[in-house]
């Protein structure tokens, strides 16, 4: 299986990501790890809450993987995103890509996180010392 997608309320694991993407015929593995930043844009973050519409999120993430695997056959991809409440410093998202050439692993890993942020039905609510805010909801 060349791609693995994990949407979970449990803590994410970088080791599981590397275990999935590491392949003897590949020399390069790029992993992006997004964590809860505090402060964020000047606001003191207490925690974040993530929710997702799981069937559509899975399908959208599979589309992203298929797109990359069709351009870079044999790549391995691991995408995991945390759901529920996440504390400052904890991991929100792990994207891992392995491939024969390191340049493409950087590019594909970067493309996946960019696309995930733009198209995948996952929503983030910030709880700050000033209250609760759904991120990116308003113009």
């Amino acid at each position, binding site marked *: 299986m060349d791609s693995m997608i994990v949407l979970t309320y449990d803590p994410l694991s970088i080791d599981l990501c590397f275990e999935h993407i590491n392949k003897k015929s590949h020399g390069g593995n790029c992993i992006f790890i*997004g964590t809860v930043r505090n402060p964020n844009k000047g606001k003191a973050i207490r925690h974040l809450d*993530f*929710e*997702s*519409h799981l*069937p*559509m*999120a899975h*399908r959208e993430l599979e589309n992203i993987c298929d797109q990359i695997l069709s351009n870079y056959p044999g790549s391995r991809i691991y995408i995991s*995103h945390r759901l529920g409440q996440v504390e400052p410093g904890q991991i*929100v*998202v792990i994207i891992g890509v392995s491939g024969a050439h390191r340049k493409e692993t950087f590019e594909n890993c970067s493309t996946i*996180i960019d696309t*995930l*942020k*733009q*198209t*995948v*039905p*996952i*929503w*983030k*609510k910030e709880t700050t010392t000033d209250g609760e805010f*759904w*991120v*990116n*909801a*308003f*113009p």
Partner: protein
Amino acid sequence: MKVQVVAFGITKDILGSRNVRMDLAGPVTVGEFRLILENRFTGLKQLKSLGIAINDRYTRDSMEINDNDEIVLIPPVSGG
């Protein structure tokens, strides 16, 4: 015609519930449905965008809504 509306993110707060059952009079397109919804829940008008999926597929405004469709509200996403 009855439809089930499922609201995520900020739309759940605006509708006051994850699931809302609605009665629609006669055939309605996605575009018309969005207007009906925005009139009933005016907070929706302030969102940066409001995508509508039917039975877990993204739609265009010209698409017809059918009886018993599950309509998912997709406010601006913010994962990652």
